[in-house]
């Protein structure tokens, strides 16, 4: 286990960098996913088509293909950036499709009668959205969005494996490949690092779920 204890600082920094990667991915994919979801449920057909196409394409492409296309393709057309930002961009684009679908499932879970009742008592469009439909939709989409985000934490390891440098995966890689430490303890350290990201996230999700659960 010396491999881990000797390099605890390195693991710590790797953990923080992975956390940072996840937070950027979280912010970006929630934002983009909400936009795409808004397109997908809008009454305007071209926007709906755009949302559907976005989800259909992105969701069926492996993250690795998106990642390769961003990292090797974009520089060809003059979009230059570090692997760090290109990797985050790929992660955000990929996750946005799943966030979109999770939000949409939340909207679909609101019974149509709720909206009909809101209209029947004379609420305007904005009022019915703001005080009846969307609050329920957001609460119903907490579990699916949460599991999408936890999956994103795990996917961030792919971005790390791709070589953004010094995150948890890269730390493990450089310790085993370049410095010749035994693989088992180092990779166990890396795995524990990721569990320290996913398990608390799962716990937080469960707490939020309990808080916003609707009894139907």
């Amino acid at each position: 286990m010396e491999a881990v204890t000797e390099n605890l600082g390195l693991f710590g920094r790797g953990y923080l960098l992975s956390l940072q990667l996840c937070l950027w991915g979280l912010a970006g994919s929630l934002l983009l996913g909400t936009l795409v979801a808004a397109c997908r449920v809008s009454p305007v057909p071209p926007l709906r088509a755009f949302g559907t196409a976005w989800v259909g394409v992105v969701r069926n492409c492996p993250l690795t293909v998106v990642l390769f296309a961003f990292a090797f393709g974009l520089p060809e057309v003059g979009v230059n950036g570090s692997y760090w930002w290109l990797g985050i961009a790929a992660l955000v684009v990929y996750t946005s499709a799943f966030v979109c679908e999770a939000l949409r499932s939340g909207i679909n879970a609101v019974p149509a009668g709720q909206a009909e009742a809101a209209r029947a008592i004379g609420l305007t469009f904005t009022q019915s959205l703001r005080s009846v439909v969307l609050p329920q939709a957001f609460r119903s989409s907490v579990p699916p969005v949460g599991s999408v985000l936890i999956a994103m934490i795990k996917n961030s390891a792919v971005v790390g494996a791709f070589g953004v440098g010094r995150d948890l995966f890269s730390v493990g890689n450089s310790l085993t490949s370049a410095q010749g430490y035994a693989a088992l303890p180092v990779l166990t350290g890396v795995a524990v690092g990721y569990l320290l990201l996913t398990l608390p996230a799962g716990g937080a999700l469960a707490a939020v779920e309990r808080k916003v659960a609707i009894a139907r």
Partner: protein
Amino acid sequence: MSSGTGTTRTTDGTPDGTPDGTVDGIVAPRRRTGRTAAAGAPRATVLYDAPGPRARRRTLVGSIAATVVILGLLALVVRRLADAGQLSAERWGPLLDPSTEEFGQVWRLLGLGLRSTLTAAALAIVGSVVLGTLIGVARMMLPGRTRWPLVGVIELLRGLPVVIAIYFTSRVLPDVGVDVSGLPGPDGLWYLVIALVAYNMVVIAEIVRSGVASLPRGQREAALSVGLTPGQTMRIVLLPQAFRVMLPALISQLVVILKDTSLAAVLGIYPELLNRANRIAQNLDNPIPMFITVGVIFIAINAALSQVAVVVERRVSRSTAHR
């Protein structure tokens, strides 16, 4: 979990499955049949009422504006690609033009890559469905505390990124003396398959468990009361029904497995489709056309699989409605 069906729950924690089954498969069709609006007329949804003349005019204006913006963006992208020389025959020729000398070679290699991808996916699918069912059943049938270690392993494997699992198998297995060279195919294939099975079997175990949990309680009670043992009850009565219920979620998970085989390309341990494409792209200097092609191949296969899921879903909901 506030609302929703068993299917939503089952795919929790999988990288991709979550929205699939629920959104397209379950909720949408039910909604559609529940609508009373006349065919062809714009329909009300939970978000907005059926539009009147004014809203329809506004939608029309919005449609035109959105079309202009989307086409404009597309034009920008195409222009950018053209300016960078990405649309040239030189870059696309090897993929599209059979008369170029590279064409045959490129597609032969891509074909080999696709075969490797499908081989790994097939092995991983069979392995994880079989082991996943066993684990799911074990988790349900083990009494009380004896199942805790199993639950621990399940949670552990679920929380681990697949790419780490693959890295783990490719580095640690040789270190600890597990020899896969006796098995047919390259070593990388088996490292990839073992890691994919390790991750996906626990996901499938959870799918199986929630499939069984979604069955009416009377099924189990009736089976036990006619004298079947718990094992027989599971095998003869519960599992066959559960498999039908969970097929859509299961198929979404199979799409995930297929997609995850390409993780091997990041680590470069197995010459599957993306790995081959990447090497060709480096030789021909055409990454954009190459990755677009690979993307299209994956999308075609996965869209076909998802379509199967939708059809199966419809069948299943029809047959359970009769029951």
